[in-house]
């Protein structure tokens, strides 16, 4: 097994100290930080994302794998330009106004970071205008909105409307998700994409950022 494969496999097992050790070993052997990231850490998270989509692993495995990846990235950070970590695109993410749920949103964030995207986390209870102004300030490719409540999901429509009002609708894609959200709701409010799970949200965001 190559070092890259070992990093990927260890990350999938959530073994944070071992991932840190292997990444450091790679640096010590003169392997470029970019290669360790793109051929070791990110592929490991990609496998976890696929397994999550296929119900082969569940949230706990994703959380510990993401924690291991973040630990590996922390080892690389002094040696790698910030834009190379998360250089595949930029997303602003948040839970919409009136809603304090953040578990789903956090999972999506972890998955997106694990696919090499930079994620600006606006937190919970985020007003529609904040999504849009943050997207402008960060030159984001994607706005990602989460809601768990039937009573708050309509705030996503306001995000779409605000993006039109601020003239960025043709520059950003809007992805929505959360327990009560459906494709038909997505269609009805004019968002770009509804995704059923965090891993698919990361796939779609990556696709949007690649265009």
């Amino acid at each position: 097994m190559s070092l890259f494969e070992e990093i990927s496999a260890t990350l999938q097992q959530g073994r944070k100290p071992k991932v840190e050790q292997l990444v450091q070993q790679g640096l010590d052997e003169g392997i470029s930080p970019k290669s360790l990231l793109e051929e070791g850490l990110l592929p490991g998270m990609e496998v976890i994302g696929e397994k999550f989509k296929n119900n082969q692993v569940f949230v706990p495995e994703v959380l510990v794998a993401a924690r291991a990846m973040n630990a590996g990235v922390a080892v690389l950070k002094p040696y790698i330009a910030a834009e190379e970590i998360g250089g595949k695109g930029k997303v602003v993410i948040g839970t919409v106004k009136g809603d304090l749920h953040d578990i789903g949103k956090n999972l999506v964030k972890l998955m997106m970071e694990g696919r090499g995207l930079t994620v600006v986390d606006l937190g919970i209870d985020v007003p529609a205008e904040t999504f849009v102004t943050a997207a402008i300030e960060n030159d984001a490719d994607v706005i990602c909105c989460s809601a768990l409540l039937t009573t708050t999901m309509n705030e996503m429509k306001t995000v779409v409307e605000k993006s039109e009002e601020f003239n960025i609708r043709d520059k950003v894609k809007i992805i929505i998700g959360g327990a009560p959200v459906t494709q038909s709701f997505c269609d009805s409010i004019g968002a770009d994409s509804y995704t059923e799970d965090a891993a698919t949200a990361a796939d779609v965001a990556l696709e949007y950022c690649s265009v």
Partner: protein
Amino acid sequence: MPIKPIREKWKGTMTDRERFNHQMHYRPFDRCFNMEFGYWDENFTQWKMFKENGIKSDSQADLFFSFDRLECVSGNIWLSPHFEGKVVEETETTRTVLNGDGLLAVERKDGSSIPHYIGSSVVTPDDWKRVKEERMRVDDPARIVNIEWLKERYPDDRDFPLSVNCGSMIGKIRDMLTFEGLAYACYDYPDMVEDMVEQCCLLVEHFLDQVLPHITFDLASGWEDICFKNGPIVTVDFFKNVVTPRYKRIRKKLDAYGIDIWYTDCDGDVRPLLPYMLEGGINCLFPFEVNGCAHPSELFAEYGKDLRIMGGVDKMALGSGRDAIDSYMKSLAPLVERGGYIPFCDHRCPPNVPEEDYLYYLDLKEAMFGLK
């Protein structure tokens, strides 16, 4: 103000207790057991019929709609004493509190969203050791049940079903550690988490040993909420190897007193865990969430009569107009007919359901599943 019911109790030829037991044991029943899970707080301030009639709680609503009666006996099977609640910080719209479970939580002042948990009092084995000694002792005198009071309140010849609460083996631990905290703790401190589950089980067993010899129960109940829409929030292996064996111990105690129905309240997609719930002796899901999991018929098709379901009326359908309600209720008719299934809204009815449509749903339910 006395509660004046807006609907009469459905006609029937059995007592609520006979009806529940017949329906859940696949025996002939006069008509479907009529119950609902409850309502969001906003419904009590927004629905005109609640406001005008002074209905402010689920229990008052049960009387208002003349639902059948189902009660539960619970013990002191969690933290004793609880952490002392206090407000740590306030903004115009939120307050940050330390709650009774020792969690630091941000709450909206208008109560329109469940709290956002940002920290736990238990992270390491040392934290748990302290909490276990101070708040989870089985020999705490506050855990002694007042049996005479219960016997008087719940005589053997009562006419309504009564459940005994078997608590939670992992859901309350999830509450205490937080969602992410539990996931990390299972990897970082597996022995600590297993000891927490064991302590929960010991507390439930202690409670059951006190009440089961004295009260005749019709069913057992519990709560876990350990799944969300993309599956369980503990690993399947953890559930199978740590939680299921404790369920089996409780099942043994219930069996000794002839209590064969045991439901647990678990939201989300329970399917990956369901085989291990059934193996442990939990054989009923309540108030089965459709949108986060599946239509109840899918689970019945897979598990047959080994599984019962209570709930399973899609709250999204209730909020989508009368055609959607008609269509969804029709899909439930064969399930009610088969037995082992009691339909009601899958969790508290949200305020986006118009009250007129909610009454329409209740009346349709009576027309379809009431006394013919």
